[in-house]
């Protein structure tokens, strides 16, 4: 089941969602920040947004701060769901 992270009430009521779904683009590891028809990818290795569009500047500061606050929880969820490409291992050592 997709993992949806709890958000402060004011963000949730403004329709913000943060998710890791059962099928995502797996590289690089990320969470999806969703609002309406727009999606921002927050890189778990980079601790930064992965795309220039939509503009990361459109996100409220307290949401970005919240992503920082729950970083470990998001990484754990990603690692559980995508163990073949964990956050901590940039180059999987399978050679």
């Amino acid at each position: 089941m997709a993992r949806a992270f709890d958000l402060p009430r004011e963000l949730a009521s403004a329709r913000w969602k943060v998710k890791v779904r059962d099928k995502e683009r797996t590289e690089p590891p990320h969470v999806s920040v969703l609002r309406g028809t727009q999606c921002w990818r927050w890189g778990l290795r980079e601790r930064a947004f992965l795309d220039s569009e939509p503009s990361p500047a459109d996100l409220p500061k307290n949401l970005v701060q919240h992503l920082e606050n729950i970083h470990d929880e998001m990484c754990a969820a990603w690692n559980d769901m995508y163990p073949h490409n964990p956050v901590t291992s940039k180059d999987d050592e399978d050679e």
Partner: protein
Amino acid sequence: MNSLTSPIVVLDDAPKHLGLSSVRKPFSSKWAKGGGQLVVSSTARFLREMPTGVVHRLKDRLLLLSQIEQPTLENVERLFDAVVVAEPSEDLLEILSAENRDELFLRASFDPVANHVVIHRGDLSTLVVPLSWFSQTAGGPQPDTSRIRVVDSGQTLAVGDYEAAASAILYEFDADYRRRAKKRALTKDNTFGGSLRRLRLQKGLARADFGPHLSAKTVGRIERGEVEKPRGRTLTLLAKKLKVPVDALASY
């Protein structure tokens, strides 16, 4: 066909329900940029005035907001490039209004004979995805095709409790989307090795899975750019294992 220049005709018997009349102007101004248009009409009136005889198919795509009987649907389908039936909703309105509506999903269904998931996008184009692509994540739910629907304003396909990102589906099955997505990426690794690594991980493969013909060490060196871009047999072996055409390898 460019989705921005492809007119969508919306047939709505209850325009007040969706409030289409109030959003017609914003639609028109957005679409005008691409030379497109949105025509709102009544299903009943359209059916009364539908042309007979030999009719050339229109390039327009039709969105029906109410169910019609199968014979009538077939009659309508002869006229349009595509016909999609969708329930009126706030999400539908939002998807149709979005500039990136071709990257959003309107509705989906399951074809049990072909074992395909059939997805209609916001520009009313169709994408067909084999059910086998929706692989189960560790400890996650199995896709349940009896409960298939689009959620998150067109950004997620829910197959039972299983959720797939529209972006992941499009990245895999739409080369144009993949090109645009790579262009938007802030951290660009446009090397062949970067593409190979992304594709391998998307397929859930380890480097050792390319054996016995390609060693894990060799795959690792290619991914890190320590060797020249592979050619011939190596490319064929990589493409075969990753189940993509050879010339698509570098596009991921």
